[in-house]
């Protein structure tokens, strides 16, 4: 069963308790999105390796393809007889010849998470409150 869990937590969600964004979710969101302050004013970015963001899309090929192939190989396929090798020689050569690199993707977020040793999630809670709704000042 698939759980739909609003990250906000605090109840009101579709079944399942409070949840929060994983570190990978956070990285997907806050590192390359949002207002950029230094377009406005002179500020410093303190000791952040912004280079890591560019690593998001990894051009994978051989490794990814071999991993996919192995995953397929492990599938239990019930019916369907395996074809004889002879049927396939053409395909195989063709496939092998055009094994160019292609835009396979890898989650930089999750990788970064691993590197940083992303720990357990802390429960989300509200950090601010609002004194009033707008328009009564």
């Amino acid at each position, binding site marked *: *069963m*698939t759980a*739909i*869990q*609003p*990250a906000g937590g605090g109840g*009101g969600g*579709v079944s399942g308790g409070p949840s929060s964004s994983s570190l990978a*979710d956070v990285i*997907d*969101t*806050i*590192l390359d*999105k*949002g*207002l*950029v*302050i230094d*377009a*406005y*004013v*002179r*500020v*410093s970015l*303190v000791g*952040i*390796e912004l280079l890591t963001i560019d690593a*998001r899309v990894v051009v994978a090929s*051989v490794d*990814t*393809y*071999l991993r*996919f*192939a192995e995953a*397929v*190989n492990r*599938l239990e*396929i019930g019916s369907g007889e*395996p*074809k004889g*090798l002879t049927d396939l020689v053409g*395909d*195989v050569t063709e*496939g*092998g010849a055009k*094994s160019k690199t292609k*835009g*396979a*993707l*890898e*989650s*930089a977020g999750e990788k970064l998470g691993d590197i940083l040793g*992303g720990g357990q999630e802390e429960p*989300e809670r*509200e950090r*601010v*409150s*609002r*004194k009033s709704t*707008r328009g009564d000042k």
Partner: protein
Amino acid sequence: MSTSNQSTDAPDEPRTSGVYVYGIVPADVEAEEDAVGVCDGPVSTVKHGDIAALVSEISVDRPLGKPEDLRTHAHVLDGTSRVAPVLPLRFGAVMTDEDAVAEELLAAHAEEFAAALEELEGRAQYVVKGRYVEEAILREIIEENEQASKLLGTIRDQPEETTRDARMALGEIVGNAIEAKRDEDTRKVVEALDSLSDSVNVREPTHEEEAAQVAVLVEVARQEELEKAVGELAEQWDGRVDMRLLGPLAAYDFVVTQKPEG
């Protein structure tokens, strides 16, 4: 508050503290007393007229970017997005002191910030993420693609060293098939959200088995409808795609920094 001591810009004395800025909010937003920011400093606001910045003091001799720092940044902003509109800053914005925040950030852009906040009032960002269930999606591909199933026959029970070419070919077919399915399934997600929002941002995939990653700006009051729409997709794709809904979040995907004039 911007009433602190005038900053004495002593150039020869290295600065040891700075003000971390999370985002811009209406001036009637208050930080909770126990709200803790990056570097464990208490979160407070710096006000200017109708707008304010959510800030906390940090020490600048400690590098930023640990997992807790990233989470804290997101938590402060996302928590805020549930009760008030907020313009999130990208992670890592630090200014010299509160005066700089009030003058150079808030005062200098008061009008556009106020207008953007007005527009965001009552709305927040949600992110819909789908991840293929590997076994299910691979089965689907093998069933649909004759060439792939032939190649599977070739590598079945054969040592890896002797079937490398076939494995490469099979893997490439799988990779391309997933890409095509992602395009199609992302389109379906966007379609399902269509009636809830006219602000949709399809994000670039960040995982090779991602089915969709879509950010939407939705009225917080309609969150239930959104959950229902995503829930229906999740049901339809049960066992094939793991669907998640994140939010309410600050509107990271929908704030745009305009180039300064000149």
